[in-house]
C-alpha cells in the first residue's frame, strides 16, 4: 500500500484512530443515556408539528413545555415526549398535533405517562407518524440525487464556497443567485449572531438579523427554491449550506433534511468551546443531529478552523488534527460516511513566521492524507488580515494555492476586506478572480507536488501527528476522559466544566420507559 506523499506510518495512523475511538466512546455512551429538549422538539417536528403561536413561540416549544410540566412529578423530560403526546392523541384529546399543541397551551389537555397496552399503542402511533417525516427526508435526498443528475454537478473540486449575510432573506436571495452566477458551487447563509443561544427556532421568512439571517424552515425553503432556479439556469446543481449548531442543533438538522439543504456546519465541540453551551447538552444534540444528517445525505462541515482564531496556528496545529479525528469518530458512529465529512481546517499561520507557507502546506497535506476520502473544508485567513487589503489579496492567493496543491474539497473564498466590511459586490468578484486564476494556472500541479521525505513539510506533518497522539493520550488519562479535558482548557484555551454552560436545564437522563421513535428509526438502518 502506498504511504502517500508524507510517508505517514500506517501503524501510527491506526493508533491515532483507535485513541480517538477510546476518547469518544464514553461520550457516545453518555449521549445514549440522555435526551434534551431540543432532541424531543426535533422529534415533534419530524412528526409534522410546525408553526408558532401569536407571540412567535413555536408550537413544538409550547407542547413540550406543557408535557414536561404535567409530568414534572413523574420525571418530566426523562421519558421523552412521544409517549405522553401520542397517548393524548389516542385518548382523543385532539385530532392532530397542531390542535393538541394549541389545546395544551390553553391548559385544556392533561398529559400522563401511558403504561401497558396504552404505552404500546402510543409507541406504534408515534413511530408511524414520525416515520412519515423520516420518509420525507428520504425523498428529499432522492430528489437531490435526481437534480444533480439532471443539472450536472460542480465542474471541479475544490467546490467554491461563498457566503451571503445580509440579515434579510429577500436580500440574500438575489445575492446568492448572483454569487452562483459568478461561479459559486456552494452558498452559505450566515446566521444571525444571536441565534445559537436561542432555545427555539424562529418561524417564517425573516428580514432582521445581526451579521446574518435567522435559520428558519421558511428561509431554508425560499433559498433552496431560488438556488434550484439558479441550478437550472447555470446547468449545475448549486449547494446550500446553513448551521446546525447552538441550542437547537437537532431541530435545525431536521429542518435542513426536510428542506433539502446540502451541507451543514456541525461540529462536535464548537458550541461547548465557543458558545459556552453545556457539554452534555451539546454531545447529546450532536449525536441526534448527525444521525439526521447521515440519513438526509447532508455533508457536514466541522469547525476546527475556529481553534486557530484563538490559539496560535503553529502551536495549536495538533489540536486541529485531534479534533478532526474526534469529529470523524463521532460522525461515523452516528452513521455518516466518508464523503459526508467536510472536516475543517484553516490557513491561519502568522505570515511573518519564517517558512509559514511550507508549514501551511504541511498541515493541509496532513489533513488530506489522514482523511483521504473526506471532502476537507479549507478556510481562508482571517486572523492575519489586517485591513491592508493588498497584502490580504496576496495572502488569499497563497491560501488558494495551498488548497490546489493539497487537494482540498471545499474552498471557502477569502475576502481581502476580511475584518474591514461585510463583503462588497466587488470584493466577491475580485476574490473569485483570485480563486479562478490560481486554480486554472496551477492546474494539476498537485500531481507534481511530492514533498521530499526528509524535508520540512513531511517532517512537520509527522511532528504534528506525533503531538496529536500525545494529546489524545493525555485526554484519555483524565479521570473522566474528554469531558475533563474540555473542562481544563485543552481545546482552544477555553475551560468548560461539564456541569456549567448554557442549556443544562434542558438535559435529562433517560428513564427505563423512555421512547423516541426518531432515534429508533434513525438507528435501524
Amino acid at each position, binding site marked *: 500500500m502506498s504511504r502517500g506523499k508524507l510517508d505517514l506510518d500506517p501503524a501510527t495512523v491506526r493508533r491515532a484512530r483507535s485513541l480517538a475511538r477510546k476518547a469518544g466512546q464514553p461520550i457516545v455512551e453518555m449521549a445514549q443515556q440522555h435526551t434534551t429538549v431540543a432532541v424531543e422538539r426535533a422529534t415533534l417536528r419530524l412528526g409534522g408539528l410546525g408553526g408558532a403561536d401569536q407571540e412567535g413561540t413555536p408550537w413544538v416549544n409550547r407542547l413540550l413545555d406543557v408535557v414536561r410540566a404535567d409530568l414534572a412529578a413523574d420525571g418530566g423530560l426523562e421519558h421523552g415526549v412521544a409517549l405522553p403526546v401520542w397517548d393524548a392523541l389516542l385518548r382523543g384529546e385532539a385530532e392532530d398535533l397542531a390542535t393538541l399543541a394549541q389545546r395544551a397551551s390553553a391548559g385544556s389537555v392533561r398529559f400522563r405517562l401511558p403504561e401497558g397496552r396504552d404505552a404500546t399503542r402510543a409507541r406504534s402511533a408515534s413511530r408511524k407518524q414520525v416515520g412519515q417525516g423520516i420518509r420525507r427526508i428520504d425523498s428529499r435526498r432522492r430528489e437531490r440525487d435526481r437534480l444533480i443528475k439532471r443539472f450536472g454537478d460542480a465542474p471541479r473540486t475544490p467546490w467554491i464556497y461563498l457566503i451571503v449575510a445580509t*440579515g434579510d432573506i429577500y436580500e440574500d436571495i438575489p445575492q446568492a443567485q*448572483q454569487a452562483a*452566477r*459568478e461561479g459559486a458551487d456552494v452558498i452559505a447563509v450566515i446566521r*444571525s*449572531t*444571536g441565534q*445559537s*443561544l436561542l432555545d427555539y427556532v424562529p418561524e417564517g421568512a425573516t428580514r432582521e438579523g*445581526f*451579521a446574518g439571517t435567522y435559520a428558519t424552515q421558511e428561509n431554508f425553503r425560499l433559498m433552496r427554491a431560488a438556488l434550484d432556479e439558479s441550478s437550472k439556469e447555470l446547468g449545475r446543481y448549486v449547494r446550500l449550506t446553513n448551521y446546525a449548531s447552538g441550542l437547537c442543533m437537532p431541530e435545525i438538522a431536521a429542518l435542513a433534511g426536510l428542506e433539502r439543504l446540502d451541507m451543514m456546519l456541525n461540529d462536535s465541540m464548537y458550541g461547548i468551546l*465557543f*458558545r*459556552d453551551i453545556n457539554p452534555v447538552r451539546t454531545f447529546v444534540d450532536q449525536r441526534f443531529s448527525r444521525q439526521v444528517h447521515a440519513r438526509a445525505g447532508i455533508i457536514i462541515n466541522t469547525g476546527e478552523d475556529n481553534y486557530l*482564531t*484563538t*490559539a*496560535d496556528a503553529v502551536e495549536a496545529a495538533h489540536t486541529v488534527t485531534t479534533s478532526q479525528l474526534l469529529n470523524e469518530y463521532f460522525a461515523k458512529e452516528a452513521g455518516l460516511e466518508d464523503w459526508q465529512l467536510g472536516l475543517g481546517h484553516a490557513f491561519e499561520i502568522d505570515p511573518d513566521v519564517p517558512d509559514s507557507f511550507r508549514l501551511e502546506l504541511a498541515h493541509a497535506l496532513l489533513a488530506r492524507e489522514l482523511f483521504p476520502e473526506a471532502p476537507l473544508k479549507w478556510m481562508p485567513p482571517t*486572523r492575519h488580515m489586517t*485591513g491592508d487589503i493588498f497584502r490580504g489579496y496576496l495572502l488569499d492567493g497563497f491560501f488558494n494555492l495551498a488548497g490546489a496543491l493539497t487537494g482540498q474539497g471545499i474552498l471557502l473564498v477569502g475576502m481581502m476586506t476580511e*475584518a474591514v466590511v*461585510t463583503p*462588497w*459586490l*466587488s470584493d466577491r*468578484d*475580485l476574490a473569485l478572480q483570485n480563486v479562478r486564476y490560481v486554480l486554472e494556472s496551477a492546474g494539476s500541479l498537485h500531481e507534481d507536488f511530492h514533498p521530499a521525505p526528509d524535508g520540512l513539510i513531511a517532517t512537520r506533518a509527522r511532528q504534528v501527528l506525533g503531538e496529536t497522539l500525545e494529546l489524545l493520550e493525555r485526554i484519555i488519562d483524565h479521570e473522566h476522559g474528554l469531558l475533563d479535558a474540555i473542562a481544563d482548557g485543552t481545546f482552544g*484555551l*477555553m475551560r468548560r466544566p461539564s456541569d456549567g454552560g448554557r442549556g443544562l436545564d434542558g438535559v435529562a437522563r433517560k428513564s427505563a420507559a423512555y421512547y423516541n421513535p426518531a432515534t429508533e428509526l434513525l438507528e435501524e438502518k
Partner: protein
Amino acid sequence: MSATPDSADGRLVRPYGDTTGDGMVQVSFTLPLPHSKTAEGAAAQLAAKMGLEPALVVHAKPMGPDFTFFVVYGRVHHLVDTSKVRVVERDYPLLTPPEVNTAVRRLLRRRLVVVGGCIGTDAHTVGIDAILNIKGFAGEKGLEYYRELKVVNLGAQVSVPQLVERARAEKADAVLVSQVVTQRDAHLLNTREMAAAFREAYPSDRRPLLVVGGPRFDESLVAELGVDRIFGRGTTPGEVASYLVDSVRKQVEARRSA
C-alpha cells in the same frame, strides 16, 4: 504668503505618489451601470467631483451584467493641516507588567479586579480574548498574565444584567467590553445600554471603570457613550493595563484629597 504651503513647518501636506506635492491618490469603486464608454465617463465624472483633477480611469471591468468596477488614479489639490488634526493621544504612562503589578499593590493593597466580555448578540471574542487571555496580542501577554490583576472573562453574548451582576459579585474595579459587530450600530447601542445600566446600579463614586474596545469605535466618543475610555483597533494589553493603573491612581488620589 512667503513660504510654500507644502513646507510650512511640515504641518501642511498633500498625498505623495512619487514626487513631493504631486497629490496622487488611487481609489476603486463600483457603479451600478453596465460596462460601456458612458460608464467609464461616469467614473471619471465621479472622480472629478471627489476632487481628483485630472483623473485617469486605469481599469474598468464588468461585474455581472449590471455593474462595473473601476480603478482610478488622480491628483488632489487639497492640503491637510496636521496642527488641526484631532485625535485621542495616550494620556497615561506606558508601564511594563512588573511596574503594573507594583503599582497595583501599592495603590490598592489587593488585586485589581477586571471583568470582561462581549455584550449583546456579539459572538466575536477575538478582541476581548486578545486583551484578557494570557496568550495576548502583538507579542504582549494578556491581562491574565499580570499577577496583581484578577481577570474574569465572561466570553461571548453576555447580557448587560449578567455583566452588572457579575461585576458586583466580583467587586470589579474595571469592566472591559469588546464589540466587533457594528451592523445597525449595534456596538454603539450596546455600549450606551451598558453604561446606563452601570450608572443605575452603582452610586457614582463606587462605579467601576467602564472601558469598551473594538475595531470600529471612534475613540473620542467617550462622553457620548457614557464610558470612561474607548480603545480602537490595534490596542495592546499593556496599554489597557497601563490605563487601568493610571485611572485607579487618579481615583485613589482623589479620594485621599477629598
